[in-house]
């Protein structure tokens, strides 16, 4: 505290020296009167500074005395002179909640961008037999902006909480603001239950409800691209129940509008899609933990679009998707900051019964079962750096000969892809990633190299397991 009162005289002395040094220069060829005027000015400044310093010092003394006489101010620290004294009780400070509500609502922005190089033209990329829907497909070639996510969340009151996630994307040169998540959720229902309503990512599978910035690879697995259009999100209601058991068991169900891939057309008067899901998990010792999930999505689709945007393939009928997911995480003593390993695998099986109509092509019944899986491992051997590998495959029934020559007819071997990635994170708010894909999903094998950045500012919600 004393050092502060030394600072001001030092500063005023410095100022005085500077003025004194400047005086002879301006005095060149000038009268004594001017020198005298400068001296007088200097004296006045000195006097002014001295009085201000005195004032500050007296205020400091008062503050120091006040601090010494306030019991709470130095309660936990024994004074050097008087020895160790017992601490008097303190009045509690304002309770600051554990939620990230220092900004109310919590606002965060995630910046994401990428650069990709392909051997084949990504514009014509498609997987024969597995038409893409939703947001799926490769990132544009060259430098591009990925989605810029704006997230706003807060408790509504003591019984409800709300969350908004708006990615801003550039599509064909146009800036588009999307509404990815906009939901409210109950906080106070009894019996371990919760209900969410609005627009949200369905809780099926492991990856489906995760935002772009928390993926371990720059792109979704092929199975998610073809069966879920990258990620299934829709408008509706979600019910979750957490069992009061010693092990983790969550059961849930969703009723959704069915307007988006893999549903479509908001069938059944706007109740076109339903899901059921169950998740369980636990620890194995201090260093290992795991989670396993099963999910079922059933949807009635009316003229669901897939393939190209201009001339889409149209599917009407029932689509059922079953997902099994498993995640295993290892970190020595549970300290993931230093070293950690994560293994994750999912199996997706889709059964469709309906009919396809192709632009200027055949139309007819479509009863086909298809499946896909991926397995990936990410290892962080030391802080900041992570290395990962992913392997994946799609397979399915061969439809009737009437589909030969159309995008619905698989050609040759089962689609496969192999990926390697390395990323570097300076903190949990910044990440740079390099990814290589050897893509054998399309007609011609492709080698793809991508660079990606993910930066987030503002409030950033905790990630789930």
């Amino acid at each position, binding site marked *: 505290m004393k050092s502060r009162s030394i600072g001001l005289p030092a500063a005023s002395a410095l100022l005085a020296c500077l003025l004194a040094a400047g005086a002879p220069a301006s005095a060149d060829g000038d009268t004594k009167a001017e020198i005298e005027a400068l001296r007088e000015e200097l004296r006045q400044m000195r006097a002014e500074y001295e009085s201000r310093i005195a004032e500050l010092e007296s205020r400091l003394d008062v503050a120091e005395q006040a601090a010494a006489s306030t019991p709470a101010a130095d309660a936990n620290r024994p004074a050097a002179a008087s020895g160790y004294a017992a601490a008097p009780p303190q009045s509690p400070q304002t309770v600051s909640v554990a939620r990230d509500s220092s900004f109310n609502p919590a606002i965060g922005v995630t910046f994401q961008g990428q650069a990709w190089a392909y051997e084949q033209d990504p514009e014509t990329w498609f997987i024969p037999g597995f038409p893409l829907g939703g947001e799926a497909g490769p990132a544009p070639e060259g430098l591009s902006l990925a989605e810029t996510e704006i997230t706003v969340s807060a408790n509504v009151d003591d019984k409800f909480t709300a969350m908004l996630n708006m990615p801003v994307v550039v599509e064909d040169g146009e800036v588009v603001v999307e509404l990815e998540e906009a939901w409210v959720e109950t906080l106070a229902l009894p019996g371990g239950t919760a209900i969410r309503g609005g627009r949200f990512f369905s809780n099926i599978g492991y990856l489906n409800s995760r935002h772009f910035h928390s993926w371990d690879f720059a792109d979704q697995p092929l199975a998610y691209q073809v069966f879920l259009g990258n990620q299934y999100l829709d408008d509706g209601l979600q019910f979750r129940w957490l069992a009061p058991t010693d092990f983790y068991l969550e059961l849930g169900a969703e009723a959704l509008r069915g307007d988006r891939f893999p549903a479509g057309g908001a069938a059944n008067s706007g109740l076109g899609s339903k899901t059921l899901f169950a998740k369980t998990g636990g620890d194995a010792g201090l260093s290992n933990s795991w989670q396993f999930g099963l999910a079922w999505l059933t949807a009635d689709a009316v003229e669901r679009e897939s393939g190209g945007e201009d001339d889409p393939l149209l599917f009407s009928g029932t689509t059922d998707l079953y997902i099994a997911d498993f995640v295993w995480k290892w970190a020595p003593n549970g*300290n993931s900051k230093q070293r950690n390993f994560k293994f994750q695998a999912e199996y997706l099986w889709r059964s469709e019964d309906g009919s396809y109509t192709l632009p200027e092509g055949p139309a007819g019944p479509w009863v086909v079962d298809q499946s896909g899986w991926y397995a990936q491992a990410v290892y962080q051997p030391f802080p900041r750096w992570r290395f990962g590998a992913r392997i994946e495959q799609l397979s399915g029934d061969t439809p009737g000969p009437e589909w030969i020559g159309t995008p619905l007819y698989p050609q040759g071997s089962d689609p496969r892809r192999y990926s390697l990635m390395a990323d570097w994170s300076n903190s949990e708010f910044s990440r740079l990633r390099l990814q290589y894909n050897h893509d054998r999903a399309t007609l011609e094998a492709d080698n793809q190299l991508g660079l990606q950045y993910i930066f987030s500012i503002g409030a950033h919600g905790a990630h789930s397991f």
Partner: protein
Amino acid sequence: MKAIRFATVSILLVLPLAARAELSVFACEPEWSALAEVIGGDHVRAASATHAMQDPHYLEARPSLISKVRKADLVICTGAQLEIGWLPMLLTKANNPRVLPGKPGFLEASSLVRRLDVPDSVDRAQGDMHPQGNPHIQMNPHNFTHVARALGARMAELDPDNATAYTDGTAAFLERWQAAIAGWEERARPLRGKRVVCHHKSWVYLEDWLQLEEVATLEPVPGIPPTATHLSSLLTELGSDGGGADFIIRAPFQSAKPSEWLQERTGIPAIMVPLTVGGSDQADDLFSLFDDVLDRLLAVPAP
């Protein structure tokens, strides 16, 4: 549908085991579960989300923790955003309205003490900032006095049948604790004014209590792991004659490499000091924690 029936049957089988006779306390850190057990005795079943070998800043919101919060009557955490990376997720997923912030079932320990290092402004360029001050409040035993009073009162409120037991438990603990503090402060006299290099700013409350002087941290900014550049600048700053500081301290879960690197080159002794209950073989309760902290600091030979 078979799966659901199977699940329902399994739940019904497990339910009787899950029925509780005691107050279930979920603590974020071992010091608070230890405190709850000391105060509540047999009336309390306490579990801690983290253990002493774990950095409480970084934790996965694991399924096992979600199911513990689901059944908890009381959640006690340090707060001041120490658990910002995982506690909100646990509370969101656990669907337990009794333990949400603002309810009697949620207690934030750091709100009960005088917090140090409260920044005037926060900017992530300064590293992992805690806008509400340094959260590692457990290294000053006086802070337990304040937390114990609030915790005992909260347990009495939540479990009124055993209110007397909690009140008596708090009083008994505080009596022993005050006596212990007097002993520690007597022993700690030689440590006054010692200069400390820390791995992370985990020790400001200890430094404040024992009047130690923190001269540097191994992390360039809080939360960013020590870098080669920063360590060599510390080497220049502290000199190679061992006179720049009296010891380099780190918590059990922090890498020993940076502090040992600096010890080799500067001659300043690097020591591991438990940051909470269970952090060393000796520190198996709150009392032995501070015994052991002092043992380790006092064992460093004077230069």
